[in-house]
């Protein structure tokens, strides 16, 4: 896997649109994720977050627009682009009938991970999974399964990491450790992360920038620590609720 220039955006989305008949799930959005950056993609249910992530993962074809991962056009060079990507989502657990080792071995081959066993040991330690190495994923708790999914997501040291509510089923202490692990990974590897979450405390703690998505459009973006004050709200959660309830009032608010 060739390396990407540190200054080049790890993800560049331009004019991305997805129509289902007359309904537009995503309406021509554009954004970029830079190296070392964690970007939060926020919005109420049905806002278009998962549709956007599905398109970036190559499992949903956009109606229009382009997606570049590390400068590689996903539509034209799918395999090369996806070699630089990985993801974890609470709705996509790894097969429960394989052990932790077996699952990671299979995905290690799928992502052509070099020095697999060395990488495996690092991840098993990082996500506290060493004792579950030979345990079938199906008998792990939901939090442990999430940690396995995150280990899989980091197997290939991706340039772009997509995390769809990664800590949704994890206790607060473990969630904090995982956030720290991901931040460390980002700063040591130069990766970029697109992170969705409904936990505004988490978003504030981990994201460098957030984008509010509503009805398929980005209607607000900025620094999660400054955005609430800029819009006369006391917390990010209050801002989220306001945007979710009255999206029309916020259209055009994006700087």
């Amino acid at each position, binding site marked *: 896997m060739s390396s990407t220039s540190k200054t080049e955006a790890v993800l560049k989305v331009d004019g991305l649109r997805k129509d289902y008949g007359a309904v537009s799930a995503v309406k021509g959005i554009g954004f970029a994720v830079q190296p070392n950056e964690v970007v939060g993609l926020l919005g109420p249910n049905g806002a278009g977050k998962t*549709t956007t992530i599905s398109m970036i993962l190559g499992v*949903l074809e956009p109606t229009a627009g382009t997606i570049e991962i590390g400068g590689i056009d996903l539509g034209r060079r799918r*395999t090369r682009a996806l070699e630089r990507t990985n993801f974890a989502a609470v*709705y996509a657990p790894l*097969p429960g009938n394989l052990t932790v080792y*077996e699952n990671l071995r299979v995905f290690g081959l799928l*992502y052509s991970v070099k020095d697999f066993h060395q990488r495996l040991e690092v991840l098993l330690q990082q996500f506290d999974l060493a004792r579950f190495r030979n345990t079938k994923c199906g008998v792990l708790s939901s939090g442990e399964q999430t940690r396995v999914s995150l280990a899989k997501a980091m197997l290939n040291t991706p340039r772009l990491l997509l995390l769809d509510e990664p800590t949704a089923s994890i206790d607060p202490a473990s969630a904090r450790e995982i956030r720290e692990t991901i931040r460390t990974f980002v700063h040591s590897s130069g990766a970029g992360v697109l992170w969705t979450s409904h936990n505004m405390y988490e978003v504030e703690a981990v994201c460098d920038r957030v984008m509010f998505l509503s009805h398929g459009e980005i209607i607000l973006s900025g620094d999660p620590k400054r955005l609430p004050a800029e819009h006369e709200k006391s917390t990010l959660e209050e801002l989220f609720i306001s945007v979710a309830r009255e999206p029309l009032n916020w259209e055009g608010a994006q700087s």
Partner: protein
Amino acid sequence: MKISRLAAIALRQFYLYRGSFARAVPLFAWVTIDMVLWGFMTKYLNGITQSKFQFVPALLGAVLFWDFMTRVMQGVSTAFFEDVWTRNFLNIFSSPITIPEYLGGLLFSCVVTSMVGLTVMIVVATSVFGLSFAAYGAMIVPFLLVLFFFGLAMGIAGCAIVLRLGPAAEWFIWPIPALMAPFSAVYYPLATLPGWMRAVARLLPPSYVFEGMRAAVAGQHYEWATLAAATALSLVDLFLSYLFFAYIFRHAVRTGLIARYSAESVT
């Protein structure tokens, strides 16, 4: 094509069989039961008829060949259904794997599982019921190749149907061999069939195999050119099944089927 990605799919199947005895048993249990049942049936028929017809190579051999083709088809389908049952499409298809690599992995794992079944059948049929493969001569090679290619084609087409119609469509796939058997003239000559069924049979490569098998057993001449044509036909079917799967996959990516497949609400 990257071999490591193809190997990943095959390795996953190996892990599943290694990890579950219950999963490994069907690889040899059903074919053993078939061989025993039809082995005694052929012995009985040999005993009650005065004709010189050789029931063991003609009937038991037909069961063996047909079972082999069915196992090949099921080997592909079952490996694919693993991703359906474990709701793993999103993880698999968001990885860099390509469709040829994914299907190649399914085919490779099916080669291993179908060979296990074939070996068990050969051991039981030859050691217990005296089936001799010498009766088929060198034609056994194209016989097995045609059935293998056609079994793969049926398996891939079945996967495409389930990908398109959703997990519940799994039950459309299992009866396919039973529906195809009457047209393939597995247990009787093609001439037994009415005209319209013979026309359908000519489109099915297995019908040439079973006609050839009966001719070989009866010591009659069977054109190698006909078997070559059947092999070519089975390869065409295999290629068409690949195109069909690729078409359905593209449709699934365009419409979002892959992304929301686990919902079981595929329409």
